[in-house]
């Protein structure tokens, strides 16, 4: 494929070998940071790599970050916080794996191990609940202190500070990941059956979004909340949420169609541009206004699937990584 320098961003990418499956790619206090399955965090500072051990001798299974902190969980049962310098243990679930973790900008943190979900507020007070089946995904609702947890046969909504049992949004089947629309109106889960399920919170109406050839394991909302970008097809599938009933009765948009499965998607923090990562290691930016596709990485030989990506707060840089231990930073030309 011939690359036109005017429309390709491949020259603006810096690559680093990190030698382990990249679980999360983000920025901590402005520094590119990669959380790796081998239990380490790699930070890029002044063209040097700094390696921080978060889970010694263990596998880091899940991570979530805010602008200044990253929380991670491992198969050692530990939940830790780091600011990129120090590592602090928050919890230890003996003999368990940490399956899901989510950190909100205000410092609220939630994690799950099998059927147990714990939620820790910014003051450090932790509450727990045990659900009927193992939890696969967690997401905070934007308003109030409320958590969504996806599991077999539905999604539970929990107010950690209330005595009441969680509310169950029931739908048969296994729900994997869960996300909440930025306005808090919709809860969307990805399912074992290669489809998405959704609930409109106001009236618990069900939404069903299907047609994927594979499971959707990456979901990202546009900054204005109007679009939900999803992986699981040979293009990024974007569902419209502008209407009162969300995507009900509407067709999705597609962008970045290629003969390869999309594994990861991440909307730009302030523009209608979505970063799309593929199973063959490709990465493209797609602009929704005109459908323009800008290649960021286009390996010509077999490469590992893109497994993580994250924008910095200003949307000038994108960190991304692969299952086979490569880490990249794209800096958009100004």
């Amino acid at each position, binding site marked *: 494929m011939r690359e036109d320098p005017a429309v390709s961003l491949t020259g603006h990418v810096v690559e680093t070998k990190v030698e382990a*499956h990249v679980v999360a790619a983000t920025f901590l206090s402005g520094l590119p940071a990669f959380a790796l*399955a081998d239990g380490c965090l790699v930070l890029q500072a002044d063209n040097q790599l700094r390696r921080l051990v978060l889970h010694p001798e263990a*596998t880091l*299974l899940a991570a979530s970050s805010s602008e200044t902190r990253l929380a991670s969980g491992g198969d050692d049962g530990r939940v830790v916080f780091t600011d990129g310098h120090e590592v602090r243990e928050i919890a230890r679930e003996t003999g368990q794996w940490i399956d899901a973790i989510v950190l909100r900008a205000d410092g609220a943190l939630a994690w799950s191990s099998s*059927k147990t979900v714990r939620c820790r507020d910014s003051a450090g007070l932790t509450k727990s609940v045990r659900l009927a*089946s193992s939890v696969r995904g967690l997401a905070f609702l934007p308003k109030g202190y409320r958590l969504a947890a996806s599991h077999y046969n539905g999604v539970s909504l929990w107010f950690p500070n209330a005595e009441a049992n969680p509310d169950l949004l029931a739908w*048969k*089947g296994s729900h994997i990941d869960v996300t909440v629309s930025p306005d808090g109106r919709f809860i969307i889960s990805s399912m*074992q059956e290669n489809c998405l399920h959704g609930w409109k919170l106001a009236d618990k109406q069900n939404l069903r979004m299907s047609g994927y050839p594979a499971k959707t394991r990456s979901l990202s909302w546009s900054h204005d909340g109007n679009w939900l970008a999803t992986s699981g097809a040979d293009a990024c599938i974007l569902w419209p949420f502008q209407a009162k009933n969300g995507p009900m009765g509407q067709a999705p948009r597609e962008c970045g169609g290629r003969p390869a499965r999309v594994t990861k998607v991440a909307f730009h923090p302030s523009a209608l541009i979505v970063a799309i990562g593929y199973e063959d290691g490709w990465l493209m930016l797609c602009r929704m206004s005109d459908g323009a596709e800008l290649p960021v990485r286009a390996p010509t030989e077999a490469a590992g699937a893109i497994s993580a990506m994250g924008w910095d707060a200003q949307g000038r840089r994108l960190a991304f990584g692969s299952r086979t231990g490569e880490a990249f930073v794209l800096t958009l030309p100004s």
Partner: protein
Amino acid sequence: MDQKIPVTVLTGYLGAGKTTLLNRILSEPHGKKFAVIVNEFGEIGIDGDLVVGVDEEVFEMNNGCICCTVRGDLIRILEGLMKRRGKFDAIIVETTGLADPAPVAQTFFVDADVSNAAFLDAVVTVADAKWLSQRLKDAPEAKNQIAFADVIVLNKSDLVSPAELREVQARIRAINPYARLHESVRCAVPLDAVLGRKAFDLDRILAIEPAFLEAEHEHDHAHEHAGDHDHTHGHDHQAGHSHRHYHDEDMQSVAIEIDGDVDPEKFLPWINNLSQTEGPNILRSKGILAFKGEPKRFVFQGVHMILDGDLQRDWQPGEARRSKIVFIGRDLKQDMIRTGFLACAA
């Protein structure tokens, strides 16, 4: 790109010796590293370094198929394990004594992420020589585990008389004549008897003959005991001797052979329809078929309603083109299956 990781499923009724076999596998000097997924965590120590305890979670798929169940815990744990490829060479899943092996096996057919990363090597069932006959009467789970097995380790064979041992073997054979059967004391079996079997690999389905014709011909199959439901009938098989044969009231195997080709236009709709209607009762199925006009052998295998089939190697010169299918299941409608298959002859 990456090699798929073999997964061995270890089943067996409570107390049969699963953990003994597991510890034996882990402690042998094979130089391999195993990730072990166990239930009943902590009950008896497991010696491995990478041991994960889980609650078995059987999930129904939301597609209306009642027997398309998968093990959700396995999907979740495998996803985590696959983040550390290279840390281990193989995976062993130890199920609870009451588990049905089918959802474990179906997970490898139904879940694309699992089947891209790993393959089911074999279902190994550990049975207690002293108590199995009794369990087959009172525990449907024990019967399921025997019927489903690719390999059966008949353990504690030193605790029964030779006559009792022959009886329990015959009871196993009445349910599943196709599994490899190994007698053992404290699960002392060679590792290659239980690992690296590739029992679900279509390329390895070379012949479907009852295993005792190949492996156990040195044994005497005449039996001294016969219970109420047992009956005797002569077999005219290759080894040329007859043996007393037990009949299990609800779990049987059916093998049907056509001495020649079948018509794929008739066979494929028939087998699809059969697996849809009789799938809940069919635990395992296998077949090697000569399709009319096709130089390659067609092989298939199935678990309940899920079928997996492909064209395999060429029929060899001098090899008789025969078509044979085998089912192991509960209350199989033998006459209907037989008539249906014979009608597919080309």
